[in-house]
């Protein structure tokens, strides 16, 4: 589903080159729930932005759903983001001017879907996250947990092949975080492929597999004694 080989991301200025990712290798199979962990500045968010085609990379190869994406133009990348990827952001990133229904509708509109089908999918997605009754509410009228649920509904509405979550519970209190995590687990059990970036070991422990990133590279946890207490395999 998601395969990066010797991937590099370099930020260049006139005087210095900074490697955000270096010889980065990862292979996420269809239906997997992978947590990407690592300290701040390790490159895990850069990995996620490249995985989500939000950013380009400097070297190596990236196959998404069998397609090598490095040569795709901006429109093609937009189409893949729209059709194959669902994003869940730490800050929810709902559009404050739009109500819940219209927020969930955003990616579907960009797909050129007919109004009736859009409505059906939106309501299904909102039912799925338990917020169908809040369709006419604006984000500011919802709690953080509810906002993240709307964001998950928005990600699910387009039936993506891959869900990318960036610290999905980072802005939530424990109770809300638990609810959101349970929802993600449920979605995974239904067959979704999920890649979640987190620095929270407890959250990472609930994923099927952990990938640890340090200094822009994936490291084998077995060689990293500091993290031996953290499980490699999810609890599902």
């Amino acid at each position, binding site marked *: 589903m998601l395969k990066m080989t010797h991937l590099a991301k370099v930020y260049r200025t006139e005087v210095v080159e900074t490697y955000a990712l270096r010889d980065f290798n990862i292979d996420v199979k269809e239906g997997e729930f992978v947590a990407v962990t690592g300290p701040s500045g390790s490159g895990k968010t850069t990995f996620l932005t490249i995985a989500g085609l*939000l950013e380009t990379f400097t070297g190596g190869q990236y196959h998404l759903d069998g397609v090598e994406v490095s040569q795709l133009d901006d*429109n093609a990348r*937009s189409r893949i*983001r729209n059709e194959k990827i669902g*994003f869940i952001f730490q800050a929810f*990133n709902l559009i404050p001017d739009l109500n819940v229904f*219209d927020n969930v509708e955003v*990616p579907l509109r960009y797909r050129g879907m007919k109004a009736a089908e859009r409505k059906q999918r939106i309501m299904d997605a909102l039912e799925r996250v338990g917020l169908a009754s809040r369709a006419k509410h604006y984000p500011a009228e919802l709690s953080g947990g509810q906002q993240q649920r709307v964001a998950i509904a928005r990600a699910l509405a387009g039936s993506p092949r891959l869900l990318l979550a960036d610290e999905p519970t980072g802005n939530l209190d424990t109770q809300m975080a638990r609810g959101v995590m349970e929802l993600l687990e449920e979605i995974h059990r239904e067959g979704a492929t999920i890649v979640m970036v987190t620095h929270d070991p407890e959250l990472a422990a609930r994923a099927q597999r952990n990938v640890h990133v340090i200094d822009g590279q994936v490291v084998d946890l077995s060689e990293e004694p500091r993290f031996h207490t953290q499980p490699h395999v999810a609890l599902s």
Partner: protein
Amino acid sequence: MQIKPILSALRRHKAGTILIALQIALTLAIVCNALFIVHERVDKVNRTTGLDETNLIAIGNDYVGAPETFAPLMKTDLQTLRSLPGVVDAYVTNAYPLRQGGWSTGVQTDPDSKKEGISTALYFGDDHALKTLGVRLIAGRNFNAGETQTVKREQQPGSPQIIVTKALADKVFPDGNALGKVVYLAKGKPSTIIGIVEKLTSPWIENNYVDGDYVVIMPVIFDSSFQNFLVRTQPGQEDAVFKAIPQALYAVNRMRVLPEKLGVRRFEDVRARAYEADRGMAILMSVVCGVLLAITAAGIVGLSSFWVGQRRKQIGVRRALGARRSDILSYFMTENFLIALVGVVVGVVLAVGLSQWMFTHFEMKRLSLTYVGIGVVALLALGQAAVFAPALRASRVSPVEATRSV
């Protein structure tokens, strides 16, 4: 289309939306009316006189002193002018087109009528008048040298022969055949129409005195101190003649004043002076239009830029969710179009209302709907042009913006 979500978003930004729509509405209302006025004035300024205005010089001459008669002085001056190198012909008159001062009289076919007759401009001249003016005689004949009479100030000017404009001929004799007919000028003696000229306008640019190109030319030299000489020069000789005239006239008789502004003038200066106010108004209105449109465009650019800056993150999120650059561009263009549409709808109402108000209070013509149409298209186009740069900037916001904290 993204109209529904755009409208939803605009409802949450009422103040900015209403202000910019109102600005567009006011601009449309003022610009439509101003352009209408400009067009009217330009039309007016470009009206033809029937004269061949090139190579024509007008002289305002005031004889000083109190001789018993000015006729010999005029005769000498005419001889002097006609003999100047480069001069084709010259004559003396009381008035001419665009002079903004002249005589009017009433023309009627019934000598006993109590009515005033058709108000018409009265020009004096002689057998040199038509050639000097460059007007086209379309029927009948020119005056003979012997037909010109000198008329004293205290006398009622009149002549057995007159030449009239076609407009007057058609007005007095709608069935045609004006040539050879007799008319009466202001309770005077009968005058026979011996010639008809194609076109010649009255001295006034407004129709306050004469309601059309109604002109009578009479073979008369009016014996008074102030006279107007018209001089036609050969092509290419206008400058030389223009410079030679004052010296030549002063040489034959120093007892005269050639006023600085109304003395010796090329006809283009006569025209420019006559339409000074109209041209000034047209320029002023054009400047007002330009400034208003620039302010409106700047307002749109400013607000759009502000909104783009404010919504960078949102744009990034939209891009992350699959929006193409063209989707973002069209979002902002459509948003502006919808605001401008509301603005122009209100603006049309205001424009028509303003025109109605000016019609009632200033006797101005009613605004043509063509101008409203042009204004609507212009404002919508201006809006789209003004929003294009900010929208283009918006479309270049990277999707990775979605992951950045504000």
